[in-house]
């Protein structure tokens, strides 16, 4: 094609200079947010810990989601996403940071998880039966192993991709596929365990086998939104001129699809528990349909599915960057509310309490995530010139 030579000439091989003001603001917000959380550990320990868990897990999922997105695309031999693949790669670079935020929970396990509270094993027969699994040393070992697997694989995926830039060999593209395939299997196993361990055991009497899959749907939905937002912002800042309407259209379709997958799994969990009506299962929804939690419960479905579904239904909606930004914002807020609804009601059944600690946790972690992403974007060429799918991606047309 005659146009390709022009486009390739326009491909920049340097990183994007993120405005220093953005970097500075992120540093300040990260400092303030995390400072308030640390202070909160002394003043209102439970609130600070649930906020740390909710927002820490939220952004760790975005980082991990970046790697999962890459792995899915590699395994499917997809070529459309290559032009913006440095964005999920930059997300993946956050995983070590996110791992630290989750590890920060370890000293406080006994304040956060009912099964770890001193003396509870003697009085609670059900928990006593689960003691072989639910004990602090084993919990810590599982956490460290899972985080190590994620840090290792995200590091490998990024390293291969950066080596491609320099070496431009097809052999590396093949290695991407192999590493991704192994990662996807390990990810699905470890992530299920993480969702059970870190979130579900907050209410250790209750259990739901679809819980992990439902969390994966949330992870995918929010990751696609974050990728879309970052891609549009970078495009507007002039760093990603190759991003075209067709790329946005496909990202919009993925947002629509994953939001609907989330709704499908969310409802599958709800319907079976509602239908069977077994007290040890319904307790989860009884708490969440009581008082102000009920409002959050319905708002959650609206934000994560109903609104995005309607707003993304028409074709032009998925091709309009401003519209996609709005819908992505709705879904990103929705994902946080979804996690908040998983983490908090168990220990705080009286009702929703949103305040400075929740805000500080979210803003602090968001700033930390922004720092990790902008740092990576700055030091890495924006367009992966060594990827064999680059030309296909530049000409992507839906």
């Amino acid at each position, binding site marked *: *094609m005659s146009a390709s030579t022009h486009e390739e000439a326009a491909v920049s091989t340097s990183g994007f200079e993120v405005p220093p003001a953005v970097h500075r603001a992120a540093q300040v917000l990260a400092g303030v947010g995390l400072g308030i959380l640390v202070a909160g550990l002394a003043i209102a320990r439970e609130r600070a810990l649930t906020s740390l868990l909710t927002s820490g897990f939220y952004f760790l999922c975005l980082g991990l989601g970046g790697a999962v997105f890459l792995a899915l695309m590699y395994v499917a031999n997809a070529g459309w996403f290559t032009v913006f693949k440095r964005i999920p790669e930059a997300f993946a670079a956050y995983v070590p940071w996110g791992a630290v935020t989750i590890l920060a929970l370890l000293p406080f396990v006994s304040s956060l998880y009912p099964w770890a509270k001193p003396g509870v094993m003697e009085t609670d027969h059900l928990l006593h039966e689960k003691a072989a699994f639910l004990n602090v040393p084993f919990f810590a070992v599982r956490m460290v192993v899972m985080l190590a697997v994620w840090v290792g694989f995200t590091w490998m995926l990024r390293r291969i991709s950066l080596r491609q830039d320099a070496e431009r060999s097809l052999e590396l593209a093949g290695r991407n596929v192999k590493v991704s395939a192994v990662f996807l299997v390990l990810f699905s196993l470890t992530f299920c365990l993480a969702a059970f361990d870190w979130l579900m055991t907050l209410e250790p009497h209750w259990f739901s086998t679809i819980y992990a899959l439902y969390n994966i749907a949330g992870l995918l939905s929010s990751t696609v939104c974050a990728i879309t937002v970052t891609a549009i912002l970078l495009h507007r800042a002039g760093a990603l001129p190759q991003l075209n309407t067709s790329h946005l259209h496909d990202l919009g379709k993925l947002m629509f699809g994953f939001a609907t997958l989330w709704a499908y799994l969310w*409802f599958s969990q*709800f*319907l079976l528990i*509602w*239908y069977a*009506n077994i007290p040890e299962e319904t307790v989860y929804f009884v708490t969440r349909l009581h008082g102000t939690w009920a409002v959050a419960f319905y708002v959650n479905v609206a934000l994560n599915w109903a609104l995005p579904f309607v707003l993304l*239904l*028409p*074709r*032009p909606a998925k091709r309009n960057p401003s519209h996609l930004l709005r819908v992505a914002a709705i879904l990103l807020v929705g994902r946080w509310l979804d996690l908040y609804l998983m983490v908090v009601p168990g220990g705080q059944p009286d009702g929703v309490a949103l305040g400075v600690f929740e805000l500080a946790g979210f803003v602090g972690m968001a700033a930390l995530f922004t720092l990790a992403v902008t740092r990576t974007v700055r030091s890495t060429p924006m367009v992966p010139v060594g990827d064999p799918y680059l030309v296909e991606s530049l000409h992507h*047309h*839906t």
Partner: protein
Amino acid sequence: MSAPVLIGYFDNEAQVLDATRAVREAGFVLHDVYTPYAVHGLDDAMGLKPSRLTWVCFGAGLLGCTLALSLQYYTSVVSWPLNVGGKPFNSFPAFIPVTFELTVLFAALATVAAFLARAKLFPGSRRSVLPRVTDDRFAIAVAPREAPSELDAAEDLMRRHGAVATDLLEEVAS
């Protein structure tokens, strides 16, 4: 209609895209473009308006959704209320799976049916097929706006864009 139609045959996708755009921009009436498979970007090149099939899909989905909910409401609340596991007769969550299935079924079937009807693909429909356009050839059909003599210029234009053969047909079904 009996106005003659000029057919230009092409060997590859890139040429047919260029030629389609050129023919349209030169002001000729683009009758249709025939390709062996869906060509990305051809809608744009032909200047087609967005498909109206989406509205059929949306309307039928809405209809399926409404019918499913009303049928379940009528059977389990009005016509023959049954106590199932102590649940209320009007148990909305229990209606959702059937509603989802019927919405999808209605939307899908109606969309395919509307497409077949619009493309006149049904038993008894007689359509002439241009040679090899279902195999390995691409064809552009151009109708004259006023005088048939315009078609000479169109033929020239398509030849310049790589047409391997041209043909004048008296009539092509639309």
